[in-house]
């Protein structure tokens, strides 16, 4: 009897692990774009009214500028970003063999600066790192996200997933409580989205500037009155990795505009 019960429990566990209650089925996933007002959508759609494109232009200039003691520009190794960077941002965060852990696109740019350009690393959320990552990610606009395909990342995606499910802060809320269970409702007048990170780095009208996914995650953590992880913390990278793998197959929108 106990034996059969154990089998029943195991079978139940096997079916539920694939799709936990509350998780969004793949065909019900929606970009934050679909939650926006027509005005904000129009702003994102027109490249001459999308302020994120200003950063893409700056990033293009930085791409060709020689820096560091190696006196090399990004373009000296990677050539024309239009072909060499197409689809790259759509698979980040990606596994770095030397470090043995996933790195974000921003971290990859700084690794490149340190290893190949012998240049100082750019501070998180600074204008230059955002401009460069917006320029690189813009080359993947319309490309389907493939993050998480790498089997070496499984443990890290799982870590991100458990962080997403874990309640935290004085409000004792997990990411999943809003972004899986209550999307399409409102919080203080603003729509709650599914938290699909399709357009980062993106221009938030509230910030009046471009910002990274890590900035967004940190704001959410402050919102539930939790202590936010530092920029570049392994936990933030794991969360970013989980969110990107959760949005696998959705097209990139960089630079998106969000209210």
């Amino acid at each position: 009897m106990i034996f059969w019960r154990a089998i029943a429990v195991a079978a139940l566990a096997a079916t539920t692990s694939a799709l936990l209650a509350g998780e969004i089925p793949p065909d019900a996933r929606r970009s934050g774009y679909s939650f926006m007002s027509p005005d904000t959508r129009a702003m994102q759609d027109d490249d001459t009214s999308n302020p994120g494109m200003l950063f893409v232009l700056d990033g293009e200039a930085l791409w060709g500028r020689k820096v560091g003691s190696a006196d090399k520009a990004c373009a000296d190794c990677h050539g024309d970003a239009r072909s060499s960077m197409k689809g790259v941002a759509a698979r980040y965060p990606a596994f770095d063999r030397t470090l043995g852990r996933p790195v974000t696109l921003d971290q990859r740019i700084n690794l490149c600066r340190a290893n190949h350009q012998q240049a100082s690393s750019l501070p998180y959320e600074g204008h230059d790192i955002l401009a460069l990552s917006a320029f690189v990610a813009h080359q993947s606009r319309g490309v389907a996200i493939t993050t998480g395909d790498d089997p070496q990342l499984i443990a890290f995606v799982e870590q991100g997933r458990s962080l997403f499910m874990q309640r935290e802060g004085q409000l004792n809320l997990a990411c999943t409580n809003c972004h899986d269970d209550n999307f399409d409702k409102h919080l203080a007048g603003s729509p709650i989205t599914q938290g699909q990170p399709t357009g980062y780095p993106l221009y938030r009208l509230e910030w009046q500037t471009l910002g990274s996914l890590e900035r967004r995650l940190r704001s959410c953590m402050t919102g539930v009155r939790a202590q936010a992880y530092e920029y570049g913390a392994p936990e933030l990278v794991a969360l970013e990795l989980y969110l990107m793998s959760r949005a696998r197959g959705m097209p990139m929108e960089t630079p998106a505009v969000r209210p």
Partner: protein
Amino acid sequence: MAALINVPSKAKRGDIIEIRTLTSHIMETGFRRTMDGALVPRDIITSFTCRYNGTEIFRADLFPAIAANPYLSFFTIAKESGKLEFEWIGDNGYSSRASASITVE
């Protein structure tokens, strides 16, 4: 500084055309303070001008309440082929220019 200009490349003589401009600027209001109470000095664009083949067709004064990366759109009548020149002037000697050409048939 980076600027994005949207002007139709071709127009018929007498057509009303829309001109849209977006430029990057932090538009620091001068009212904000840092964590230790020091006032962040004002740094805004104060004036924008558009010239159509040398003739001024649009001018705007900008103020601290205007958001970062100001977006301006306005209309004019397509009279002749030529060049539209844009200029943004601001605090601390800030000056930025851009231009676009139009063919009028």
